[in-house]
């Protein structure tokens, strides 16, 4: 055994684990959609007459079938994505119509029979094209939306210019600081777009046949989904139930509406349950990471002290805003990195293009920011003749030092982590081999979400069986194991006595969603409070029954323990409450306190850090980069399940390595060229570095139970920059665009040698 078994181990290794993709209901119909082949155009005519008459077809949803009085748009801050195309299509793959039929085949056949006339508009394929003067606008009329109330230094504007749906800005200190710098460096970086490639597809089943809306969904945030469905369909939230079984991976993609609105509407139209399951190919067209252009202007003194940074970040939001404004907040806010600055001015814009909508992706803007920042810090060190490790150690925030004014203190010793990975890779080793180099990087993000509330409930039955009700979904991260472990530890029970109840939004207390690495640091605190309250109730009860004071008693495996005496609790409960028994029950709540001085509504709950050191070898003739060694580390604060922590760090690191070296969605204009598993290259086992070391630190400073904090995103953040840094160390060229393909490396090597490629 490698530590205790995960709570989901048996189900997931026997094939018994149930996912939304496995849900089947009696009388269930299947939905399929017709997608636009035109990237940008006006929808002139859509006629589903033939489709409606086809065998097995029960309903066709086109713009005409939207119920009057409902609001057919969804989104996060900006409600701009229609259930089906209304007046326009905005990317190749945009949904024109949906069909519910007896089988998927019949639904697909009917989709093909829908007649569509689209008048093409000029396509806007890239950030540059979208911002060019006179560019066609994706949204000539501004969609409805809101801008949050930010705290000190932060601000945002909706639609500041054509094709920009949202711009976030963070300013701190006096811009005059640049004048005091010995050097000001300006560099531009480019970040490519990945797809989440979650294996369980986007899928939901909706049943509106009994006067309620009931949804099973592979969804990371069931409560916000419920709210969004209620708003769109004008149904009270207590008439909507969202169930979330196990989720087969998400990595950010499965937040908010994806397949659900179409399944709901088709179920309303047919009175039958409707399943809408996308293929992996459709997944590529549904949600992606943000490609980005990042320009950094950084002022330093000649001794390598960082002084001032200006950042301009342009995110490719794709055709609909989705979570782009939220990602912009984070990319903009994280652009300085965890260093001491006198002045920061960071601007991040979401640029609309006729490509697949971009949304949340592991790292959430932090990946983009870390790629640019950690590359530039390294470039500055080399320009100043400094050791890249030393410049980081010199400028990194100390433990407890606030990230920005009004913020919480950094809760990891950044220097300790840097030295740890540096020592492990042999940073000081003088034994250098030709074409090999070392790189280091420090990834960071504010973790735990923005102003995020979480509630939990813990119940204990007469016999000491423990129920945990909470809305954190099990998406692979091990949340059920870790949260049940918190409850078991507080109640003095073996872990197997705790069962996590299946999630449905009627019976589970509110949670904002499983994202932002918040499961332990936010929900964990709510769970711990609920468990502590139940413990207090039980001890009070036992004390009364045993004529003792609660302080004299301990709780151990459903016994009240006083010194040597162990009294079983079940008989006491039945004696007091009667033979049918009782349940002790309590709720817990956590939310970071609101603070107007904090830039993002509340001080950050915890700081998620990823440290990486890497060795690369560069083939000077082909440009191929291989990674013989990779050392990655995260800080769990206190690891609640060591193997789960390790798995999160290693998975994140390999996702980062794919991003660094090869993984990307390739567009030819507005056309996605590799949107399927055969041509989209994702890391496989054979891509692992020969030596791949992950170290779960337990520095103990986390705000969560027992000093725990979140992880799972941090280890992705530093990887790409660490690889680029190592390449410069190896062969003296700097790659500023991801992925670092052999072609880009070879071109840079040839340019350095002064001949054209």
């Amino acid at each position, binding site marked *: 055994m490698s530590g205790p078994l995960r709570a989901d181990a048996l189900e997931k290794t026997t094939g018994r684990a149930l996912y939304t993709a496995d849900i089947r209901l009696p009388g269930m119909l299947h939905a399929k959609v017709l997608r636009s082949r035109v990237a940008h155009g006006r929808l002139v005519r859509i006629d589903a007459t033939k489709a409606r008459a086809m065998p097995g077809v029960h309903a066709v949803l086109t713009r005409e079938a939207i119920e009057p009085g409902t609001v057919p748009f969804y989104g996060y801050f900006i409600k701009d994505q229609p259930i089906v195309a209304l007046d326009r299509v905005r990317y*190749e793959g945009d949904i024109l119509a949906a069909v519910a039929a007896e089988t*998927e085949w019949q639904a697909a056949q009917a989709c093909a029979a829908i007649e569509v006339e689209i008048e093409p508009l000029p396509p806007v394929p890239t950030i540059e094209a979208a911002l060019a003067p006179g560019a066609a606008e994706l949204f000539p009329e501004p969609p409805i939306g809101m801008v949050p109330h930010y705290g000190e230094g932060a601000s945002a504007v909706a639609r500041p210019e054509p094709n920009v749906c949202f711009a976030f800005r963070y300013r701190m200190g006096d811009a005059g600081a640049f004048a005091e710098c010995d050097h000001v460096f300006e560099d531009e970086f480019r970040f490519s777009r990945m797809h989440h490639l979650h294996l369980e597809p986007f899928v939901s089943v909706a049943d509106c046949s009994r006067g309620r809306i009931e949804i099973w969904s592979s969804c990371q945030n069931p409560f916000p989904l419920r709210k969004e469905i209620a708003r769109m369909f004008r149904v009270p939230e207590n008439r909507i139930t969202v169930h979330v079984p196990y989720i087969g991976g998400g990595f950010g993609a499965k937040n908010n509406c994806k397949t659900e609105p179409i399944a709901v509407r088709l179920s309303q139209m047919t009175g039958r349950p409707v399943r809408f399951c996308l293929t992996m190919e459709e997944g590529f067209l549904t949600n992606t990471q943000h490609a980005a252009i990042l320009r950094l202007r950084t002022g330093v003194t000649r001794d390598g002290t960082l002084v001032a940074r200006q950042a301009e970040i342009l995110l490719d939001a794709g055709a609909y805003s989705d979570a782009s404004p939220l990602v912009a907040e984070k990319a903009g806010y994280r652009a300085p990195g965890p260093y001491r600055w006198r002045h920061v001015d960071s601007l991040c814009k979401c640029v609309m293009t006729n490509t697949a909508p971009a949304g949340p992706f592991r790292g959430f803007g932090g990946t983009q920011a870390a790629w640019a920042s950690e590359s530039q810090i390294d470039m500055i060190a080399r320009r100043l003749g400094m050791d890249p490790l030393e410049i980081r150690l010199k400028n990194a925030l100390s433990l407890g030092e606030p990230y920005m004014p009004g913020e919480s203190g950094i809760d990891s010793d950044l220097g300790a982590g840097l030295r740890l990975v540096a020592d492990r890779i042999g940073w000081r080793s003088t034994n250098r081999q030709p074409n090999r180099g070392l790189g280091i990087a420090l990834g960071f993000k504010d973790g735990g979400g923005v102003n995020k509330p979480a509630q939990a409930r813990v119940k204990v039955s007469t016999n000491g069986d423990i129920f945990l009700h909470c809305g954190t979904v099990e998406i692979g991260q091990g949340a059920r194991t870790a949260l049940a472990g918190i409850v078991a530890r507080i109640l003095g029970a073996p872990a197997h006595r705790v069962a996590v109840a299946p999630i449905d939004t009627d019976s589970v207390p509110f949670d904002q969603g499983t994202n932002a690495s918040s499961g332990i640091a936010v929900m964990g605190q709510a769970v711990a409070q609920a468990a502590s309250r139940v413990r207090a109730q039980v001890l009070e009860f036992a004390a009364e029954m045993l004529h003792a004071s609660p302080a004299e008693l301990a709780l151990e495996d459903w016994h009240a323990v006083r010194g040597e005496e162990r009294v079983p609790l079940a008989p006491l409960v039945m004696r007091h409450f009667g033979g049918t028994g009782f349940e002790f029950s309590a709720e817990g709540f956590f939310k970071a306190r609101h603070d107007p001085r904090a830039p993002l509504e509340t001080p950050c709950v915890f700081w998620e850090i990823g440290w990486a050191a890497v060795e690369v070898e560069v083939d000077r003739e082909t440009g191929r980069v291989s990674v013989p060694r990779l050392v990655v580390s995260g800080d769990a604060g206190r690891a609640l399940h060591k193997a789960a922590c390790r798995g999160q760090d290693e998975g994140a690191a390999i996702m980062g390595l794919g991003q660094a070296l090869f993984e990307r969605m390739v567009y*030819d204009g507005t056309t996605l060229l590799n949107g*399927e598993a055969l041509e989209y290259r994702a890391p496989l086992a054979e891509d692992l570095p020969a030596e791949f070391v992950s170290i779960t630190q337990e520095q103990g400073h986390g705000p969560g139970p027992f000093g725990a904090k979140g992880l799972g995103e941090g280890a992705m953040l530093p990887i790409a920059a660490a690889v680029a840094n190592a390449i410069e160390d190896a062969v003296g060229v700097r790659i500023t665009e991801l992925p670092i393909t052999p*072609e880009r490396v070879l071109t840079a090597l040839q340019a350095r040698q002064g001949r054209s490629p």
Partner: protein
Amino acid sequence: MMRVAGGLVAASQYALPPFVLHRPTTVEEASRHVAAGAVALAGGTDLVAQIREGLAIREVADLSQVRGLAGVSLAGGTLRIGAGTTHAEGAADPALRAALPGLAEAWGRIATARVRFTGTIGGNLMAGRPRYEGRLLFGTLGALLRFADGTTLPAERLAGEASRHRLLTDILIAGPERLLFRYERALRPMMTLALCLRREADGRLSGRAGIATERLAPAFLPLPELRAPAAEAEAAAAAAFAALPRDFADPMSGNAWLRAAGHATLARALKAIAA
């Protein structure tokens, strides 16, 4: 089912249109069905994907019960590889390993464990996908494809569509004992390169290289005659790549890089093959 973009949007995870299934037991019978428009189903690892991509089929001829399609033999100085030979069988075949170890080694590395046991070399070639490596390997080797109707076609000239109504029966490689073969796929999926040299009676070496990407059908590049491949590697690679068409490029790999990386890979392969 439909195509959107260059990528694919197969509408369903598995819903396929019904088709008429033929299960011939002889080559003649199978050939008749294929000539009449049935799609040949060999190992069956690719056809479902093709249907999901939009290939319209009405009839399928399942080749799994056809006798005599599989196996490797060496007779009369010619290596014969049955089209129904799976990748795993081919790579492990003692006759092939003895006659042309470079090909056996390369063959053992293509595809995945799942495909290697059921996928056949005939299916690999006839699927007509650039990323399937059979055409690069056998095209570089100068292999001849023989069809059930008695016609033959050099492997390098295979184009999926034109041969769809012919049943491939075997692949012939003449004089394998005189061939040196090497396959480089470390740069996959951006680029792969195969090298084949033929030892002539007087000791000279002639041959060719093949280069392919995930999206481009292979280009075959003749090599100048060589006496000492190691010493002449750089010049021979340069000469070969001078013939690479300027439009040989795809959105993931530009022509200049393919040329430079291909040249370096070929020069190394020549040095390695000489060793």
